């Protein structure tokens, strides 16, 4: 009986085993059937770029996203940009208008609301041969249309300031116009509206409130008439990838690749895996691997890729809350600066690839000054400053004031940001050595940037990064009128609450100084005040890692916010490709 039962069990097990075996065989066959295609040799007439973000819209004027700028830089060309040497240059215009060359002229308005005020008349000429992808020439009408869209409060354009500053566009001929600015601004030749295809977009703009939902850039993004760069978008698969093909009407040097695909892989570990598996050819430095990943990959695959680490305009720093009674004292702020070894931190954490910041101005910027106070690691100086500020060290190692209160400060940052959390812990250790008790606190980015920083709710110190631009106007972050308060509905970005009449005056003077040589001393003084007063503790400038296959040449990282893709026609492939 027992043997019979065992036999029945064995039969049942055998049947199940048979089913599983069949399933395994079927799966194996499926694997073998679909596998070989992957071993095919990669064609070099196309390029697949990996980035980590998908644009929310392809309309150049609505919303502001790095991913969109990156892709559209291949399909459009702005009038002006900062080149790879951080010099302002023309891309769509023929000559850069400046006060020095007479292309821009100071005028005094004699009629209307602006009567008696000074402004600027800037003459622009569109490059000959500039055409939309459908063959229509790029004209002044397209610039005027873009200006109208940009000015309209309901069009959905994010930053209206440049459009509002332009009070008129006077048409001279089909390619020439005069832009009239309502006031003097040193960045006068960076405010020109880039053209939008009036022949395709005018209908969508008839009802301005509906424009962002009707724009052809999102309804018909493969329409060649929307683009005038070396490439045009030929297909978009939402959330997955964007395909670009050469634009037949491009007037410049013909691009090398017959197709460029920008693939979006939101996770950087997966991005790296795709790079190594050949799913992408190149991880864009602007929106790609983390520095850690890139340096680790460099050790493993230096023969396959060139690695460029370009420090730029992302400025990591710690905002002091200057309403905090302890941090009001400049000596304490300076002690904190002397009490940390940023050079060593950069060397240990970032292999020295992220340069230590002395101020908020990148050393690559033409207005950066070296004549500023610096804070090399000097714990003795830090201790002396704290002593003089009344914070004396006791037997337990901490510092106390005359009232017996311990010198204790909180340091906050975003949670889940591994590098920042690491930096926090290192700073805590450094500052403990000089007797300062640091309490660490992290918050999700939404809470941190949605309320804590923007409403100045951090009690003492907040670590984060600013994204800047070459010769960026410091008004928003340093002018006393920009301190967020409940009264002004938390507007402004002077989160430390920095007030300096001299700084206010310098910023106001800077804004209306048109010649660079006249601005340089003002910039120098601004940086000196920044470094002396230390409303913010500078840490370092973040570096973007560009992981470029050895067969790809022509990519030259800029370090500023304008993408490398603005020069995509220089990119070349092939064994003989040489870096230009």
């Amino acid at each position, binding site marked *: 009986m027992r043997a019979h039962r065992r036999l*029945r*069990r064995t*039969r*049942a*097990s055998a049947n*199940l*085993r048979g089913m*599983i075996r069949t*399933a395994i065989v079927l799966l194996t066959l*499926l*694997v073998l059937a*679909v*596998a070989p*295609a992957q071993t095919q040799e990669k064609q070099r007439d196309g390029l697949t770029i990996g980035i980590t973000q998908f644009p*929310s*819209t392809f*309309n150049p004027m*609505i*919303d*502001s996203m*790095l991913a969109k700028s990156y892709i559209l830089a291949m399909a459009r060309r702005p009038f002006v940009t900062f080149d790879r040497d951080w010099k302002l240059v023309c891309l769509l215009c023929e000559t850069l208008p400046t006060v020095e060359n007479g292309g821009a002229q100071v005028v005094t308005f004699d009629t209307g609301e602006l009567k008696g005020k000074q402004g600027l008349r800037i003459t622009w000429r569109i490059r000959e041969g500039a055409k939309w992808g459908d063959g229509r020439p790029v004209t002044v009408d397209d610039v005027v249309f873009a200006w109208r869209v940009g000015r309209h*409060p*309901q069009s*959905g354009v*994010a*930053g*209206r*300031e440049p459009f509002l500053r332009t009070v008129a566009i006077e048409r001279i001929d089909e390619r020439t116009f005069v832009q009239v600015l309502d006031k003097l601004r040193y960045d006068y030749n960076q405010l020109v509206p880039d053209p939008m295809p009036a022949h395709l977009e005018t209908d969508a703009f008839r009802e301005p409130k509906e424009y962002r*939902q009707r*724009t052809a850039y999102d*309804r018909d993004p493969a329409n060649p008439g929307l683009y005038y760069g070396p490439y045009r978008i030929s297909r978009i*698969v*939402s*959330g997955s*990838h964007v*395909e670009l093909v050469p634009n037949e009407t491009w007037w410049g040097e013909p691009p090398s690749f017959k*197709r460029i*695909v920008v*693939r*979006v*892989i*939101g*996770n950087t*570990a*997966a991005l790296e*895996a795709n790079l190594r*598996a*050949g*799913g992408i050819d190149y991880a864009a430095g602007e929106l790609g691997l983390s520095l850690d990943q890139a340096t680790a990959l460099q050790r493993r695959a230096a023969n396959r890729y060139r690695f460029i680490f370009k420090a730029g305009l992302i400025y990591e720093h710690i905002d002091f809350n200057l309403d905090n009674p302890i941090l009001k004292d400049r000596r304490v702020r300076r002690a904190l600066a002397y009490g940390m070894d940023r050079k060593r931190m950069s060397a240990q954490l970032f292999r020295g690839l992220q340069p230590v910041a002395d101020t908020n101005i990148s050393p690559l910027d033409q207005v950066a000054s070296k004549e500023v106070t610096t804070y090399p690691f000097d714990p003795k100086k830090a201790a002396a400053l704290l002593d003089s500020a009344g914070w004396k060290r006791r037997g337990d190692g901490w510092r106390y004031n005359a009232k017996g209160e311990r010198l204790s400060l909180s340091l906050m940052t975003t949670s889940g940001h591994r590098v920042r959390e690491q930096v926090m812990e290192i700073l805590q250790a450094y500052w403990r050595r000089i007797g300062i008790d640091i309490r660490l606190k992290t918050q999700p980015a*939404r*809470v941190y*940037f949605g309320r804590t920083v*923007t409403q100045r709710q951090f009690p003492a110190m907040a670590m984060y990064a600013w*994204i*800047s631009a070459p010769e960026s106007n410091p008004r*928003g972050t340093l002018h006393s009128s920009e301190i967020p308060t409940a009264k*002004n509905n938390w*507007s*402004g*970005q002077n989160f430390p609450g920095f007030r300096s009449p001299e700084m206010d005056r310098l910023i106001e003077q800077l804004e209306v100084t048109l010649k660079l040589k006249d601005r340089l001393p003002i910039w120098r003084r601004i940086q000196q005040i920044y470094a002396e007063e230390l409303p913010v503790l500078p840490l370092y400038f973040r570096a973007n890692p560009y992981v470029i296959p050895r067969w790809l040449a022509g990519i030259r990282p800029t370090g500023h916010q304008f993408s490398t893709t603005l020069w995509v026609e220089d990119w070349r492939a092939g064994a003989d490709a040489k870096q230009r």
Partner: protein
Amino acid sequence: MSAFLIRRLIQSLAVIAIMSFLVYALIGLMPGDPIDIMIASDPKLTPDDAARLRALYGLDLPIGERYWNWLTAALGGDLGFSRTHSRPVLQVMGPHLERTLLLMGISFVLSAAIAIPLGVWAAARPYSLHDYAINLFSFAGRSAPPFWLALILIFVFAVWLGWFPAGGLETIGKGGFWDRLQYLVLPVLSLTLLNVAGFTRFVRAETMAVMRQDFIRTARAKGVSERGVLTGHALRNAMIPIVTIIALDFGTLFSGALITETVFAYPGMGKMIYDSILANDFNLALVGLLFATFVTLAANIGADVAYAVLDPRIALT
């Protein structure tokens, strides 16, 4: 039966109505809004710009009023416009849903097809070498973080062996059934391994519990074959809790697998819902989550009906 279905349908509609408000309120009450996100990426935005954009997107209205506006429009058939995709919500959701259904559907069917025989096999020979091996696999599968497993699969099958693409939807410029299938292999494998591990343990436990029942002994005493005992008696009775688990998991067929979709760069519903929540894309997040809720509720009703089919003692009234 029909009275039961009508009652459950009404209950489900009430749940969806409550969920719609809760989800809307939760997203709305999170600190920060889409304009804060815009300001973070464009420091040139002025306070005036921020105020204007908030008014334009209706973010300056109280949360209750915003919800009411959405609800009245939705009842009129307008589910709104996705801010992060610049297209109507349904247009955005359609392709994501199709992809998720394909990915999760294949994985779901494969998981059930592998896990049920595997669990029954383990239960038929408890504490044997096979059983230990299956248990080990199940524990390992349950313990493996989906993110880690997905990356391991990519490194083995895409980086080292080069058999399959590391992620994406299709070979750009190629496409076609076989091509798309290649891109599905690794994400499906990743999800299936995790699901099989979970289902197998459950099937094994339920089948073993049933195998100890008196009626199994009776069936064997009547001379029913061991295969008959397993499939006709044990499995059928074990299926009731198994169906419950499957029904509860059914909602994920439509709501996607966030981690797997993220790692394999597969634009499905999970990633879409997650991104829309982070970006404060109210309309898209809300519709995506409500759709997942609806499917889960429908699957539960389906499970109730399945109970009645599987067990004649259960009557739906």
